[in-house]
């Protein structure tokens, strides 16, 4: 029996979320006496592939066929289903991000394997298989029982942590997926890549601005703070609706749901729809000039004040710490 982990890379480097997935999978594997296998799609250096072993994979299956250059949900699913069968995988784990959400449901239906998305911890029992997930956009949790033999999970980021990379060099194997012969229904016309910027869903620290920031011209203060912290930037829905910030930064019930270690909310009132997207953050810091703003009800720390005064101070003080 094995556990299969979808090891996602970005521009040839494995993401932190991938290492967290492997750390998580290894923990499960110990409990059920199974091995962890990592699947890597597209060309990637052997050094990088070895890292997957350090974080817990016994074996790495590498798929480099041209037909998987573009993410096609249907083709990828067929390929992964073939691999599940070949490796006798019983639990398949994806990141709870755009990629995982594209693939996990299809695979679940193809294998008739129960899917639990947005899992936040290891199973509380294996027989029956019971595991905790987020529901109602972060407003509650559910214990879900899965009755099928094979299970598909997507793991919520920053919910488990990353173990020390002490594992051995993995066995690396190519997988040809010859059985997948269909043609894709999509043709790539152009790509708009986010380069040199930390992705919101990967970030451990997120600095976020709301309508209280007054306009896009004040975002340099958000960006400077994010810079010194090595953080990603986010915003509320009205901010992206107004076009002050791109849509991919919109956080909340109808945008991205994130779970950073530290979330800094600046000029954000704390509407219930926004909180839904950030309530799993470990620590929330709010900066707001209204002492009655609801954001203070969910914040661990708050600064009552004008962002124009608070943000530069904050950036300066953090720079001093980082410098020392």
């Amino acid at each position, binding site marked *: 029996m094995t556990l299969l982990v979808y090891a996602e890379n970005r521009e040839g480097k494995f993401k932190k979320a991938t290492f967290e997935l492997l750390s998580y999978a290894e923990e499960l594997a110990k409990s059920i006496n199974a091995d962890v296998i990592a699947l890597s799609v597209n060309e990637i250096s052997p050094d990088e592939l070895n890292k997957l072993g350090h974080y817990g994979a016994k074996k790495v299956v590498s798929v480099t066929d041209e037909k998987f250059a573009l993410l096609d949900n249907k083709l990828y699913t067929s390929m992964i289903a073939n691999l599940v069968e070949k490796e006798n995988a019983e639990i398949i784990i994806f990141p709870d991000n755009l990629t995982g959400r594209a693939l996990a449901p299809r695979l679940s*239906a193809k294998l008739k394997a129960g899917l639990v998305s947005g899992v936040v911890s290891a199973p509380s029992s294996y027989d029956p298989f019971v595991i905790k997930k987020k529901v109602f956009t972060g407003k509650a949790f559910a214990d879900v029982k899965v009755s099928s033999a094979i299970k598909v999970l997507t793991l919520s980021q920053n919910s488990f942590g990353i173990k020390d990379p002490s594992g051995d060099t993995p066995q690396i194997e190519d997988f040809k997926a010859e059985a997948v012969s269909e043609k894709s229904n999509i043709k790539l016309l152009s790509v708009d890549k986010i380069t040199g910027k930390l992705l919101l869903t990967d970030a451990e620290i997120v600095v976020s601005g709301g309508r209280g920031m007054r306009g896009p011209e004040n975002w340099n203060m958000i960006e400077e703070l994010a810079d010194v912290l090595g953080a990603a930037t986010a915003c509320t829905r009205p901010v992206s609706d107004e076009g002050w910030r791109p849509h991919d930064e919109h956080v909340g019930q109808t945008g991205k749901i994130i779970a950073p270690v530290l979330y800094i909310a600046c000029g954000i009132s704390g509407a219930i729809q926004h909180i839904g997207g950030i309530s799993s953050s470990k620590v929330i810091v709010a900066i707001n000039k209204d002492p009655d703003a609801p954001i203070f009800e969910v914040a661990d720390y708050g600064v009552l004040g004008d962002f124009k005064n608070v943000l530069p101070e904050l950036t300066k003080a953090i720079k001093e710490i980082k410098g020392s």
Partner: protein
Amino acid sequence: MKILICISDVPDTTTKIKFTNDNKELDQTEIQWIINPWDELALTRAIELKESLGEKIESITVINVGPAGSEPTIRKALAMGADNAIRVDADPKESYFVAYQLAEAIKSRDFDIILAGLDSADYNGASVGGMMAELLDMPSVSAISALNIENGKVFINREIEGGTQKLEAQTPFVAIVQKGIAIEPKIPAMRGIMMARTKPLEVVAPANADCLTENIVYELPQPKGACRKFTEENVNELVDVLHKEAKLI
């Protein structure tokens, strides 16, 4: 071109979630039900396309798996501008069950684009669209933030981890949509509400489907401790706390 939109009804986004029966069931007493926000945007986009392309969009159909109690939500979709509706008469127990019901109801019909929301605001399965596509053996594209039709060709933008891709997609396919596909949901006008009453709503019997998962018990997050407040004058202290106590920076 025929468009189908899968809609589910979910608690209003401002709902305070509570449970009953030893935390085994959602307390529905004070819940207002709305169209899942992503589905509402999908429908809005379909209506926009029809407004700009006219007869090239032959029909806009909505489909829902739910008991008779979800008909107000379906009527709202008709009032927004869908032409007709299908309701599969079953309790939407879990994602696979729902996807199966949808696939069974859809497979004998003919649609070019089937739209589904990326996530649902209730159990956050983020799964029905993809599962349904697989059960229909149809391609699917996820996280679509723009959809246009030009000379019968379908162009989409989809968000991937680390960027946005512009794609041309062959029909039929399942389009799993997110924010951006439309910005503000269409608000039904009085005329639409009147017309919705007489638009066709077909009720179909459910298929025999399995459930693969079951939510056995719910819990609410731990209440937060009191917020520790700082002022403009002592931001330094906050940074100190974050650094030394919380060890976050």
